[in-house]
């Protein structure tokens, strides 16, 4: 089945281990009125490991299944097959009561901070709330811990008594981060945490995440469509296309020598402010296909310049090329053999 290529060659046991994760929804357009709904394969055999203390990034365009993967890990959507393990504990199939203590270890931050906060609650109280739910510490200690944490994510004491609508987007995202971190989670899952923010504020939050990682030894699963941010923040990256991981590897290596034609196009499509772009521009034809009607063979072949007959029939498996980078492409491997 899936090989272990998605984990780096180290002896460290992974904190989070995802194996052959699958999820399908009923949805899409019916062929006729009252006709049956199609099945959409949103996540189609995803495997990866997140090591303790590292930042693992998942990138891809909308509809590639990156957010669904996060939701499956957090039990916010139902997986149809596969396994998700936190250290030695299997997470899939657990009931709500078994999940409650686990929520302390797994916290998450989503894109829209206003949607994540209670509009009628002062921000300090919102950061205290998780401690109350998990019955940790005495009330006075809770207050002190929350205030300290808010301050360390960059919110001055004068702002602790405010309501979410009185804060800016960046400040709200800081509150959401503080609320996720107050439980000292082992893994923080961030799904597009900075996409709704202005450029200069994005950099503030990215720097905050970096310093939190250093200080707290936080493990991060960072999901984004923004390759430059993922490159900046993450140690290892997986690129998803239509429910599958098509390429994975150390962030710098993957972005400087992308092997999959999709990753190559994605990297070259990032608009640069520098005059000389390090990669020749590849403009793909067509758009990502709908997961309701995935093409046969490799999902990328209709847009791929290198597609061969084999690509139209068989789905390539993710295979390690020996450098820590793994690619799911028939043609990329041929390419590599010629190079080496």
């Amino acid at each position, binding site marked *: 089945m899936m090989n272990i290529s998605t984990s780096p060659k180290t002896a460290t046991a992974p904190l989070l281990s995802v194996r052959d994760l699958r999820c399908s929804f009923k949805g899409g*357009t019916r062929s006729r009125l009252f006709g049956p709904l199609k099945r959409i394969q949103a996540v189609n055999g995803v495997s990866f490991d997140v090591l303790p203390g590292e930042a693992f990034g998942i990138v891809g*365009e*909308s509809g590639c299944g990156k957010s669904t993967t996060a939701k499956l890990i957090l039990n916010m959507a139902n997986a149809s097959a596969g396994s998700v393990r936190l250290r030695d504990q299997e997470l899939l199939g657990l009931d709500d009561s078994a999940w409650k203590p686990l929520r302390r270890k797994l916290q998450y931050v989503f894109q829209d901070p206003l949607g994540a906060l209670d509009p009628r609650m002062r921000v300090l109280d919102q950061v205290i709330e998780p401690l109350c739910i998990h019955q940790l510490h005495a009330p006075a200690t809770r207050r002190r811990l929350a205030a300290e944490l808010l301050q360390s994510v960059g919110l001055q004491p004068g702002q602790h008594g405010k309501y979410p609508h009185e804060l*800016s987007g*960046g*400040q709200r995202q800081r509150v959401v981060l503080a609320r996720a971190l107050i439980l000292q989670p082992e893994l923080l899952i961030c799904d597009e945490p900075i996409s709704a923010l*202005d*450029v*200069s*504020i*994005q*950099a*503030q939050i*990215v*720097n905050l995440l*970096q310093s939190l990682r250093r200080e707290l030894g936080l493990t991060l699963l960072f999901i984004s*469509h923004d*390759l*430059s*941010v993922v*490159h*900046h*923040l993450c140690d290892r990256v997986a690129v998803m296309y239509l429910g599958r991981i098509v390429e994975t590897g150390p962030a*710098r290596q993957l*972005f400087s020598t992308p092997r999959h034609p999709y990753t190559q*196009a*994605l*990297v070259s*499509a*990032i*608009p*640069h*402010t*520098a*005059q000389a*772009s*390090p990669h020749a*521009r590849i*403009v*793909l*034809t*067509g*758009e*990502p296909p709908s997961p309701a009607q995935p093409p046969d063979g490799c999902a990328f072949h209709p847009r791929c310049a290198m597609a061969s007959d084999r690509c139209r029939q068989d789905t390539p498996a993710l295979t390690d090329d020996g450098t820590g980078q793994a690619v799911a492409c028939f043609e990329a491997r041929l390419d590599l053999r010629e190079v080496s």
Partner: protein
Amino acid sequence: MQALLETRDLHVAFALEQSRAPVVRGVDFSIGRGEIVGLVGESGSGKSVTCMAAMGLLDEHAHLSGEVRWDGKPLSVQDDVCMSRLRGRELAMIFQDPMSALNPVQTIGKQLFEAIRLHSADRPGRRELAARAIALLRDVGVPAPEQRLKAYPHQLSGGLCQRVVIAMMLAGNPRLLIADEPTTALDVTVQAQIIELLRTIRDSRGMSIILVTHDLGVVAQTCDRVLVMYCGRVVESGPVATVFDSPRHPYTQGLLASLPRLDSQDRSLKPIPGLVPQPHQIGDGCAFAPRCPNAAGGCYSDSPPPQYGEQDQLFSCFYPISVQSSRATR
């Protein structure tokens, strides 16, 4: 070169209950024929309002002053009759979300026919309309245009819808296109396609394009000139290569330094401290002073006038970054 569209000392303020919120505070800019000018800035910088003002799309709550000139003549942007004669034919606008620009209960064909009929002097018949619509869709790179005419917007992807909107805009063959965040709602690979399309349209039709965006990378790859706006003013402008290579205004430099880059390995991001002020918080001085590393006493009381740097670079700052140190940090 005579400017196609020009604004002089444009001010826009929105009426609040007690006061007015100044959103655009004295914008001078011009765009020549066949030029692509980028208008960048963070949310609330007034870039969209400047464009809406030029299109005459602001309602009675907006107080306008200053001058807008079209093709050398003053343009009365608040005169609806005059503006509706120009809109679509002379200057057109496309927006961020193509889905809301299209009518969800009409086919693509019907909407395109309407645009074509509105802008043609003769009265084209059904067959002629269909032929022109298909030609337009082909121009903007919609695959299988014959079949798309019968499709509804929800059956097309975001990128295709944006192409259809661009085709409708082309039906009027305007001389100036204002594109307000046209690729923000799209994926990166599709964004690259739309940017390519806009450049092709400029090259083949000689159309001038104002590209409003918050994405400096998009500007670098698309535009000839760039205007950087902050709190309702243009703080720096000039040729894209010059401004991005050696920004003179601390705000421009701050924006560039806060972007992560693929070509640099160990560079830590240097975010601009603080927050963008609200319109009512802006005093007399430079609006950027509270966040500026170079700010001194005068910055808080006086507003810096624009001054010229190298190669038509224009910046409004009392303590600009020198060319040498600006290049060195890039």
